[in-house]
């Protein structure tokens, strides 16, 4: 570990994993935590339990705001364990001088999103700190949900299984980069920020046996696939041209030197199912987003790694994103 914490330690990639393992896991060690799933499964598999903190600049961005993000983020972590989000807490740390009107706008957007999930906020906390102690507003939410589909796990991938994404990738990361101060780009792009429980319910209603499920937040789809490959001791082979990416997102990536598959999403998930469920799962996903796609298969060619196959017959590794995402120089 480096002597001080840098932004890279919060990127959802390699440095982030190092921080969690070497500091937090070391001291908090227990069997439930060690599973390192999106949400902890507790009470003999009946409940899913998770927490997340939210800081985003700007607070309002095309297609969402920090409030929507705070509910979606936690509810989605529950949904990714096959759980129906039920109860939530909401803690806010507010910088002195913050606009009351904006705060109410944010809370209202939290309410809208809670309704979509069928969850309620049952406890909370507010702190106000002097100017400069936080950047405007930080929100923490903790959620609890009842598990409706058991056995979803990052370690369940087996040779021959299929991997799908629920929609085109990278919208949130690209939108935030475009909206963030200093990178002035004009585009009609919106974040994908959305509650995912309804989509997971649709998959369960269609009797699809979900093997693994994860929302591709920080670190993007790359981080999810890498983690699955490692945890399940398999190789994930991705067909590069099948990864759905909007023209606008690709354009921003080309200009800045990013890859859409590394960018954060807030309403996009990766799904692993058995080969036999692949067609049905794709049909269900495409009812919500026509861009949903089958992108990869599980093999044993390079165990623990993700391979990217190009349409001209070359192969390369797709690594976990490292460091802070920075635009290229020229």
């Amino acid at each position, binding site marked *: 570990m480096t002597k001080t914490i*840098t932004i890279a330690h919060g990127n959802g990639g390699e440095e982030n994993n190092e921080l969690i393992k070497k500091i937090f896991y070391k001291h908090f060690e227990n069997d439930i935590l060690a599973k390192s799933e999106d949400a902890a499964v507790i009470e003999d598999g009946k409940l899913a339990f998770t927490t997340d903190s939210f800081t985003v600049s700007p607070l309002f961005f095309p297609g969402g705001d920090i409030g929507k993000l705070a509910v979606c983020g936690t509810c989605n972590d529950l949904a990714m364990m096959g759980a129906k989000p039920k109860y939530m807490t909401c803690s806010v740390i507010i910088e002195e001088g913050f606009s009351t009107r904006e705060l109410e706008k944010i809370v209202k957007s939290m309410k809208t999103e809670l309704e979509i999930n069928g969850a309620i906020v049952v406890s909370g906390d507010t702190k106000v700190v002097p100017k400069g102690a936080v950047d405007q507003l930080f929100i923490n939410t903790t959620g609890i949900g009842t598990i409706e589909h058991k056995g979803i796990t990052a370690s369940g991938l087996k040779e021959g299984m299929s991997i799908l994404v629920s929609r085109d990738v990278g919208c949130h990361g690209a939108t935030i980069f475009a909206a963030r101060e*200093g990178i002035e780009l004009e585009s009609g792009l919106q974040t994908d920020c959305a509650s995912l429980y309804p989509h997971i319910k649709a998959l369960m209603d269609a009797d699809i046996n979900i093997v693994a499920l994860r929302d591709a937040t920080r670190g993007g789809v790359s981080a999810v696939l890498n983690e699955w490959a490692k945890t399940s001791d398999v190789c994930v082979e991705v067909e590069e041209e099948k990864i759905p990416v909007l*023209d606008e997102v690709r354009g921003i990536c080309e200009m800045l030197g990013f890859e859409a598959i590394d960018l954060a999403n807030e309403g996009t998930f990766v799904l692993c199912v058995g080969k036999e469920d692949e067609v049905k799962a794709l049909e269900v996903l495409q009812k919500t987003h026509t861009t949903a796609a089958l992108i990869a298969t599980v093999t044993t060619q390079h165990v623990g790694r993700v391979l990217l196959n190009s349409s001209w017959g070359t192969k*390369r*590794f797709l690594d976990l994103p490292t460091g802070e995402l*920075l*635009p290229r*120089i*020229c």
Partner: protein
Amino acid sequence: MQELELKNLYDDFRDGETIKAYAQIIAEDAAKLEKPINIMEVCGGHTHTIMKFGLPQLLPDNVNFIHGPGCPVCIMPKERIDHAYVLSMQPDVILVTLGDMIKVPGSNGSLQDARAKGADVRFVYSPMECLKIAEENPDKTVIFFAIGFETTTPMTAVLVEQVILKKVPNILFHINHVTVPEVMVELIDSRDVHVDSYNNQIDAFLGPSHVSVISGSKIYDKFPKDYGRPVVVTGFEPVDAMQGISMIVKQFVEKRCEMEVQYKRVVNHDGNIKAQALIEKYFEKMSLFRWRGLGNVPDSGLKLRAEYAAYDAEVKYKDVLPIAEIEDHKLCICGDILRGMAKPQECTIFGTACKPTTPIGSCMVSSEGACAAYYKYGNLI
């Protein structure tokens, strides 16, 4: 006129069938080569393209790449990175730079580390954003730590011009711009003191694309003429790169030695005259610039002209800036890699002590460096 979309600029240049067709042409021509050829792609952008799109997997054994020094972050010697770090730690300073530069470790740490310790370090996509930062922070000094080859130099020159015209009182410059042809000459000509040899392996150059938009292809005329090395100025997309390689192979088969331009859709012989004039107006050559991994290269660096010394952070802060040269780690073989005498995997610390998260040598620090590209994309054949 039909509107041009961004995707028109790259879609066709990534077509799998076209790439395969070029692979076929190259294979047929390469079969006629009398000896293997080593092509140096000078530019880090090309290294990235070549590795990201897996192009070596499509080439016959007798066509090899040597990965060149054209990554502006990679070639910065540690002492200049220390300059950035020290400047960022000065009271009331906002240090602004481009992209990857904030990740490169100097002897005290990287700019990222400086930021973690409280320094105000920002990265921008366009240097012009400094004007806004300076306006919003009138009681701070904004220092633009300028890096890059001919491609980014005009942007810095425009900022210098704006600062002078608008009489902006709080922007200074630390200039680290370098130029391509001088280092190409150095690679062909120089004696490597470590191995005491002139033994470079470069047979031809894939010429940088965006640099050439500014400078024009004229800067490479001397390489076929005076040094016997063909140059093909090539674009950044995989179809571009494959076509460029194919043009080089054809020159060898047909026993020609010429400067050609594959990237005709944007590069011409004279380049952007206006940008060149702007560079000329504000910058002059440094007699020596020390390249990380390569050492001193004559006439390869730029500095602000003496009459603009009032805007030069190197002048204004000269009392606090370290001057001693700092050598790289003893085990690092970046110099050999840049000269085409070794591949990244031959380095004993590649992928072990030296990784993108903890880079030791220059070629690992930026995504455009050869070692970083090898590490990230692997070498699967």
